[in-house]
């Protein structure tokens, strides 16, 4: 087989053009997923009646059904039941589907991070006359954050790559562009390799940023050791 390296390089500018849409969908869904995931985690931890049961069904749905099918149900299925939903554009649909799905996963991450901080610490805070919010803000949450960052970063990288599913409902992203390019030349391997390399670089950058963030929340622990 003849591998056309020159062609692969020539695709770079045409594929990188779609990096903004990938980062936009990936990042916005990620941020929304964190917000929803935290809300989910709070509901699960406190077991609010009714809300908790509803949430259990929702989470089981989002965790149990493949992303592609969820996007399909959301974009093609729901508008048939509720015609007003058909005005949602494809990008919004992908963002909502991705963020809710990953919120379901992240809620478990956050929940376990909360559980990892010993309950005694909270009780200790209360015993020295701190309010509930003071305890959460100054003692519990910093520790929860530190524990939650590594797995949460994982989800960010996964979501960035999941955006390629958006092409199924008509959002052209890097992966889609590569497919469209390769369709003309039939050089699929070259095009896919180029996309693969770009995704790899993105996740390497994200990993680097994550390590910086980790070092930042790790600071108090380091100081302690130096003293």
């Amino acid at each position, binding site marked *: 087989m003849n591998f056309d390296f020159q062609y692969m390089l020539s695709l770079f500018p045409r594929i990188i053009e779609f990096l903004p849409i990938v980062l936009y969908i990936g990042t916005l869904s990620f941020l929304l997923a964190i917000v929803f995931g935290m809300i989910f985690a709070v509901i699960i931890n406190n077991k609010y009646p009714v809300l908790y049961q509803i949430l259990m069904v929702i989470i089981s749905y989002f965790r149990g059904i493949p992303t592609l099918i969820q996007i*399909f149900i959301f974009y*093609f299925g729901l508008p048939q039941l509720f015609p007003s939903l058909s005005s949602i554009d494809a990008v919004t649909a992908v963002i909502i589907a991705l963020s809710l799905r990953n919120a379901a996963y992240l809620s478990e991450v956050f929940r376990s991070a909360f559980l990892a901080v010993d309950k005694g610490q909270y009780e200790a805070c209360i015993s020295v006359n701190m309010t509930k919010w003071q305890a959460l803000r100054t003692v519990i949450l910093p520790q929860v954050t530190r524990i939650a960052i590594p797995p949460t970063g994982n989800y960010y990288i996964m979501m960035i790559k999941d955006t390629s599913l958006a*092409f199924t409902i008509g959002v052209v992203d890097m992966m889609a562009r590569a497919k469209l390019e390769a369709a003309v030349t039939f050089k699929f391997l070259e095009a896919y390799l180029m996309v693969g390399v770009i995704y790899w670089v993105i996740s390497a950058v994200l990993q680097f940023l994550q390590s910086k963030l980790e070092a930042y929340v790790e600071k108090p622990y380091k100081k302690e050791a130096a003293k």
Partner: protein
Amino acid sequence: MKLKKFSGLFILIGLIFVLAACGSSDTGNGSANGAETSTEKKVLRVGSSGIYPPFISVDANGKAQGYDVEVLELVGEALGYEIEWTFAEFSGIFGMLDAGQIDTVANLIAMTEQRREKYDFSTPYAYSGATLVVHEDNNDIKSIEDLKGKKVGVLLGNNLHQFLEEWNQANGNEIIITPYQDVSGTYNEVALGRLDAFIDVKITAASRIKDEGLPLKLYGEEYLINFDYGFPFVRSEENKEFLEAFSAEIQKLQEDGTLKKLSDKWSAIDVTIPHEK
């Protein structure tokens, strides 16, 4: 305990607000766009996979090109419509058509019986048929009968897949049919010997074998099955009138030889010769 219950309520209310905000801003955009298009030039929204050269593909600047594109543009021009393209994975295209997000599909859509039951088609604008792509050294496959006991690749859900499945059921189920999600790797599969044959439209197969430079060939000259290709529209009263005008324009292009010219420009084989009935 009471406080906890209240905070749950707050969260729920917050959630509803967020969702409502999402929804309302979207509908706002939607209606604004709709109003814009109706006052300006009429728009025909066309969906396509964008990966079906020489009929439809995307050039270096991301613009649609190919036989289907030029046919549609000529018809659109005559009827006063501007073409708006949407590219999506083929598996999502008909869902978009059903949901009303696009008006028609330009992807060399064969007018099969099942599709005719559901959609109204324009007059055919191309005619071709199915062939088999086999390895250069493979001289065993001379007809569809010879596929028995062989592994044959198909593109999942397209009309050739249906055709082969139906033939297989009627003839003893001996062909091992392997569906693929997209065409990217399928010709390589045949070249590497993992598949004995791949079923494809003849025009596409001929040009792809040439361009990809793989040790492949067509099994023979005969079509396994003939197909007429048209543009599908959702069946409705509103579409009926438009579709008649649309078909009349295609007929005109066929009669004055424009289709033949476009076919010569894009395809190695003349696709404008109707099959003998």
